[in-house]
């Protein structure tokens, strides 16, 4: 329950705070609570990956982007669109539909917790799911090259030519 409060409270703080740095820190709180939930669900490997990738890498990447793009004051004068009420309505409808589906369904086994150990995950990753795993490395390579190309300053390629 504490972890659920952390996830939902952190998420709400992310989308409502005016200061982008505060939003990014709230996102780290949210992701940390999610890592705790993964550990409770018997998936310590996923929890560790969550801490490493999300809290370690993506949060730092986002903080860097915020600091690169915010000139001076990070407090936004007008954080929301005019379509704020409509957006709230759409999000509430979405939560209602998914939540109703989760509540109305009769779930068969509600007490068994299968442990996802490192050994079983590694076996699945290198036998049945070997092709997606290899495709993923290709995708990451493409993402690295694409990000470098996009983030390069335009003056630099004139100098390179």
């Amino acid at each position: 329950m504490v972890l659920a409060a952390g996830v939902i409270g952190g998420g709400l703080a992310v989308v409502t705070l005016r200061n982008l740095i505060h939003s990014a820190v709230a996102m780290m709180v949210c992701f940390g609570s999610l890592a705790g939930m993964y550990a409770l669900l018997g998936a310590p490997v996923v929890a560790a990956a969550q801490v490493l990738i999300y809290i370690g890498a993506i949060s730092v990447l986002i903080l860097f982007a915020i600091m690169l793009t915010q000139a001076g004051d990070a407090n936004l004068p007008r954080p929301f669109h005019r379509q704020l009420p409509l957006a709230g309505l759409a999000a509430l409808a979405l939560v209602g539909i998914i939540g109703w589906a989760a509540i109305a369904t009769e779930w068969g086994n509600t007490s068994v917790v299968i442990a996802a150990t490192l050994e079983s995950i590694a076996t699945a990753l290198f036998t049945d799911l070997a092709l997606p795993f290899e495709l993923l490395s290709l995708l990451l390579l493409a993402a690295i090259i694409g990000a470098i190309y996009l983030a390069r300053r335009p003056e630099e390629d004139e100098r390179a030519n």
Partner: protein
Amino acid sequence: MGLQGYLIVSAILFGIGAFGFLARRNAILMLISIELMLNAANLSLVAFNAYDYFAADNAGAVFALLVMAIAAAEATVGLALVIAIIRTRQTPEVDEYSDLKE
């Protein structure tokens, strides 16, 4: 908190992410909202895996790991795009990007 509890937390987190994506004006915050939605999907994958709803052993946990790697790639390219746009337009606010309309 059984499977239902985790699914409801996941639904609420997805809703928060969708709300942030639709309502905020800052491009970086919209990317953060996408990350929230991906994490909500991950949470339900891991929950279904823990309660043995996948045919293959631990397919849910492996899918969650694959989603994390794809999210990392998406965040990298997305932030590079946002930084490139902000460099040319000098603003992170998405409703100022109206070149195609004018």
